[in-house]
């Protein structure tokens, strides 16, 4: 399954580059995001869970400030506390995201040699997870919003600090969402292109 997703990602990247290649080049990012998830079942009260995402993404400029992105990550949501004699189970799996990003609409903030661009990504996600210690797999989609700032100076590399906010359409839960802090490195692929 994972091979299929990676193949699709490669087709996406190689196939769409010529169509959308504009002034800004394709960029790749690698990063980590972590934070808290809130989970509530119909029968039991809400509890927080800790989560982490570790993944990569590709962003294709589509003209102007908009780019189209595809992300693939491994994620893990830890079990909640045992308070009340129950817990929300730990699960982990693959996280695939398709999103649009608006960036560089505003003039950057300048801090010495650095420039800081604010941006916003929004899109859909799909997860294929397994409950920890079991052989039970399940699927659920979601939506997400991710405000971020891109920090860099002359070169092809920049740092992105983001605040990802996910909402999951779990059919067995009343509420499932997460928020956190993300850090990633973004690398612009065209030679001699200076991102900042």
């Amino acid at each position, binding site marked *: *399954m994972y091979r299929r997703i990676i193949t699709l990602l490669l087709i996406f990247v190689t196939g769409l580059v010529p169509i959308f290649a504009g002034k800004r080049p394709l960029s790749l990012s690698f990063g980590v995001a972590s934070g*808290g998830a809130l*989970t509530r*079942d*119909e*029968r*039991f009260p809400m509890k*927080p*869970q*800790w989560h982490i995402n570790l993944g990569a993404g590709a962003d294709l400029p589509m003209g102007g400030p908009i780019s189209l992105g595809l992300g693939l990550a491994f994620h893990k949501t*830890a*079990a*909640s*506390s*045992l*308070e*009340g*004699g*129950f*817990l*929300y*189970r730990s699960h982990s799996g693959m996280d695939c995201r398709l999103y649009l990003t608006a960036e560089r609409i505003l003039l950057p903030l300048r801090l010495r040699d650095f420039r800081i661009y604010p941006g916003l990504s929004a899109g859909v996600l799909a997860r*294929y997870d*397994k*409950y*920890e*210690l*079991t*052989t*039970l*797999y*399940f*699927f*659920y*989609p979601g939506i997400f919003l991710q405000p971020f700032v891109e920090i860099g100076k002359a070169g092809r590399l920049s740092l992105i600090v983001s605040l990802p906010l996910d909402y999951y359409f*779990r*059919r*067995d*839960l009343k509420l499932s969402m997460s928020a956190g802090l993300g850090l990633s490195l973004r690398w612009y692929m065209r030679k001699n292109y200076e991102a900042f």
Partner: protein
Amino acid sequence: MKRFKGSMLLILAALFFGGCNFDLNYDRYAIVYGIADYDDPIPGYYPGVPTSNDLSYTDNDAEDMAQLLTNQGYNVTLSTSVTQAQLDSDFATARAQAGKDDLFLFFFSGHGGQDLQGQFNEPPPGDDADEFIVLSDASTDLYIIDNELGDLIASIPALKKIVIIDACNSGGFIGNKLEVDATPPDYSGTEDSSLGQAISLWANFSGEAYDISPYDALVISASGEREYSWEGGVPYNHGFFTYFLLETPDHGDNNGDGYVTVTEAYYYTRTNLLSLFSGSSKVYAPHVSGGPVDFVLFEAR
């Protein structure tokens, strides 16, 4: 300010790492059945019935399980000879006792089967055939089919409910709705998951109940829907599954938090059973319910 920061850190720590120290401040009730002495032959039992219907260690399973649960603070009702009337009476008592915040556990060790003759076929989206456990009394209703047990379990007001069945074909009592179990109902050593099936289950989820829904109770079954569950003599003297289950308070606390949850007990019994039967044609694998929640089964020793 320092105190405020300290409090905030404590709250955050409690949020994400808390729960290691909590009181089991609710009542726990258990009905524990282990039937070894069966009528011979069991009337109407489906093809594949053993020539001798008596089992050797299922009563030991129940007695030792009842002892363990009593030591753990459960209020236990134990029986090694169960009629339909007694089952109804025990569930009526549990229904009256177990409140919303309490925990209810049903343990059964004995004969189980799968109805391949179509007598109890369940409608879609259930599996093809009903599974059942067999009670002692041949003169009355002998079989408790999965849906019937599901209804009995659903009638208990407690929100935390656990069902543990050490019997042949017991995997058929699990009524998962959203999860694809990569362990097949007749395990031969390979697992297989399907993203397509998982997407289909998500898309077609209706909440409709069949078997024992994970939203009614968490079930651990000794075997898959199409597997036998075995018992063994010295040094086990129990059903193999129950033998390992009885060890879980000592060895099954996977994350070391002081408690053994249903999932941890499942994982410990499964790991040990697969190891014991590795390479054997009799290999069978426990199964567990899906659903987003898990319950404390034992305090770790």
